[in-house]
């Protein structure tokens, strides 16, 4: 087992920069999710960690060994890294046991020892008795488990997951999520988990690295990402935060500041030292929205849409001061708001976003 250090890694394909100076420190035994929209560079990052792609600049270290740098690339087969591929990548011409035992055979492990370790790995994923089956005769979830067992049997330093749930149906996803969490707890393996699904990342990871346009935008715990997003992109990407312009008038010493949001005076949480500046944006959560009476502190606008979702409705509201900044929130039954109707909203709190999106 070892930690992983990604140190200022840049990757260019001809003129296109897929990764721009990414640095991530994964602690030994940590479960780290790399989260981002498609095209953000997360797959490139995974292929670099695995050794399938070379870095253009920067370094990747496994423990204290350098495995990737511009003039060194340890081959994937020599990195002791396990990968769980998106479509499992089980070899169709081998049985389950042969699939799992392949890397041991390559490493010339003697047959009795090999059989013992294959059986152990099958047990670890609760697939005893399936050794002689062909991968084609397994269900999606079972194949996933065989893929897990295959990468475990070699006792890797690090396991990479490449969007392992993307091909599964919804109810299987939930149970596989439980299985991955359980697997991490039991084995204590260092895991890097690539996904574009925010709820998956939140449910599993100790920390999440949010990527966008080849950059690492924020690396934090799920709780921090939600409550203290670093940039407008993270704020709106994580749980659909509402990003609104504010005027900051003063900073308190306790990590809060006074602000004005479309005329409503509001106390925002903020980074210590953050204060009045131009172009300030706040991240507000839909649970912090209240419908208020005319005349109370707040701001006016129009209800654009009401989407009934069973027991509650999602309301989309256009503030008069900035109609393009849609505010959405939830009204439980009985739903009284109607599209086209005017209303007055107030926020009870929010977070002053400390950084701008990189250009």
């Amino acid at each position, binding site marked *: 087992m070892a930690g992983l250090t990604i140190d200022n890694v840049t990757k260019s394909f001809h003129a296109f920069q897929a990764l721009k100076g990414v640095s991530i420190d994964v602690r030994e035994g940590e479960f780290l999710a790399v989260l981002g929209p498609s095209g953000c560079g997360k797959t490139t990052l995974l292929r670099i960690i*695995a050794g*399938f792609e070379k870095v253009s600049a920067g370094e990747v270290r496994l423990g204290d*060994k350098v*495995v990737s740098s511009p003039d*060194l*690339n*340890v*081959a*994937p*087969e*020599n*990195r002791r*890294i*396990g*990968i769980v*591929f*998106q*479509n499992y*990548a*089980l*070899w*169709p*011409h081998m049985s389950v046991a042969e699939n799992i035992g*392949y*890397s041991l055979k*390559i*490493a010339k492990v003697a047959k009795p020892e090999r059989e013992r370790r294959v059986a152990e790995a099958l047990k670890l994923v609760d697939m005893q008795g399936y050794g002689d089956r062909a991968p084609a005769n397994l269900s999606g979830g079972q194949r996933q488990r065989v893929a897990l067992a*295959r*990468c475990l049997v*070699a006792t890797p330093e690090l396991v990479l997951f490449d969007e392992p749930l993307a091909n599964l149906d919804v109810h299987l996803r939930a149970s596989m999520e439980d299985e991955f969490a359980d697997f991490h707890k039991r084995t204590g393996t260092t895991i890097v988990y690539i996904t574009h699904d925010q709820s998956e990342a939140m449910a599993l990871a100790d920390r999440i690295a949010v990527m966008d346009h080849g950059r690492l935008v924020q690396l934090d715990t799920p709780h921090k990402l939600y409550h203290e997003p670093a940039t407008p992109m993270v704020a709106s990407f994580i749980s659909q935060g509402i990003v609104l312009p504010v005027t900051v008038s003063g900073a308190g010493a306790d990590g809060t500041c006074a602000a004005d949001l479309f005329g409503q005076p509001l106390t925002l949480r903020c980074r210590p030292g953050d204060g009045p500046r131009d172009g300030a944006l706040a991240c507000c959560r839909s649970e912090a929205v209240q419908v208020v009476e005319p005349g109370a502190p707040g701001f006016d606008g129009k209800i654009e849409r009401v989407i009934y979702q069973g027991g509650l409705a999602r309301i989309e509201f256009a503030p008069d001061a900035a109609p393009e900044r849609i505010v959405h929130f939830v009204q439980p039954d009985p739903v009284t708001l109607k599209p086209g109707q005017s209303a007055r909203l107030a926020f009870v709190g929010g977070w002053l976003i400390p950084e701008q999106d990189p250009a």
Partner: protein
Amino acid sequence: MISRSDKDRGQFLALITFIGLIVFVLSFLPLLRLLQETVFSGGTFSLDSIRNGLSDQTVWRATRNTIVVGLGGTVASVILGVVVALIVTLTDVRMRQWLVLCFVTPLMIAPQVTALAWLQVFGPSSPILHFIGMAPPLGTPNPLYSPEGIVLLLAIQYSPLVFLIVRAGLRQLPRELVEAAQSSGAGPFRIIATIILPLATPAIVAAAALTFVSCVGNFGIPAFLGIPANYLVLPTLIFQRLAGGGPAVLSEVAVLSMLIAVIAMIGIFLQDYFSSRRDYRISGTSAALAPYALGRWRIPVEAAMWLLMMVILVLPLTGLILTSLVRGYGVTLTADSVTLDNYRFVIMEHIAARRAFANSFMLSLAAAIFAMFVAIPIGYVIAWHKGRWTKVLNIVVEMPYALPGVVLSIAAILMFLKPIPILGIQLYNTVWIILFAYLARFLVLGVRPVVNGYLQIDRALEEAAQIGGARLLTRMRTIIFPMIAPAAMAGGLLIFMTALSELTVSALLWSSGAETLGVIIFSFEQGGDTKYAAAISALLVAFTFALMLFANLFAKKLPSGVLPWRD
């Protein structure tokens, strides 16, 4: 750690060097030698041999004939192939798989066998015409001994090629495009004219170019049908000059073979030009077109299709088999006069024919096995290591097959006329020069199914093995080879079938003791022993059918689309 990763790179470099060396020797060197002979024949740059070659009236006539039958054969093949592809792919005719099988089979039969079989249908000695009492008097020329006859047989030989390419193109059309036209009120013929044919244009153009190259390079059909009428095309002219003059006329025929290559190239460039101007890249993975219900036209259309299959397949093969059972020229076939003597003679008695069976069998088997094993690493590089130079590799591998076979044969003679330098081995006038030409010419037939197979395999399967610690050659052996082996087998089988009755290459390269079946059939026919030629041809056809059936047994394990006659 570092040194081990170098080891993997070392294995890759070794692989690339191996592939590069083979492809260089088989594909590049012969053509280089041919080019050198045409413009540097005396050691200095000169256009004299080109000028001499082109000042000859016979050459111009043969060139004109080549273009005439090439274009005629292409137009006829495209019309026939496209119509059959439309009917079989878009309508609800029944027994579709059998129709595909029957229509594609002529492609599996060697051109000279097709020619021989059709000659038995018409003409004064036709057993079929005798049978129905309509045979013309002895001495009347066979109507197929004419440019029209050549075009007709080229169309039958190569319309399956058009059919396969256009059918594959039609099956990729998303059904929404047609349904959108239907809901706009367009009738079936209008949809074919305004939606389907325009979208199938790239496939049709590609098929036409390939057919043109095949028609221009075809030797068997114009040799059997054109030489008796003194209607020469460039391949048959080269054959006659070389047969008459031997190595002394090599420089001259080298120019002629370059002329064929240029004509073929023009076809390919025209295709490139047209397909770059009309790029209808079709995206989407939607379901295939729903078959169009023919209604009360179904039975007539089906009847017409089966009649067509009778004419292109059953009729000539019947002629061939009946001729192989006849005692002599002009003898009417009756229940009493049927004989198997011809078969006994070619298998047991005729020494050269027996040698030819052995030679062709050995040559085809060697070419097939060689290609199977070389195609796996070549396909690996072409399909999975995309780069600028893999495109070059692909083109170089395709070249000896894309260019007419006569071109490669002349190149091979030029290369091996003198013993190989340093080694001092003499290949000319032995069976080994034919083997060299077969390896070069048929390699691509093995590479194509393998590339196809690689593209249908998820690359992650190899990466998973790499993660498991396996280096390149280990991955090749334990992961890639088992998965790609069926595709390589299919390629080997196609090569075996094609090479077994091959004539174009061996007609120029054979020598006494190194005859092939194609050469033996040709010389029997030229010597007037049609019955013996027919007997060998019938055996070849039977053997081909048996191989097709055998391949069907493991068709389920193959990547889709590698066996042309399977739907």
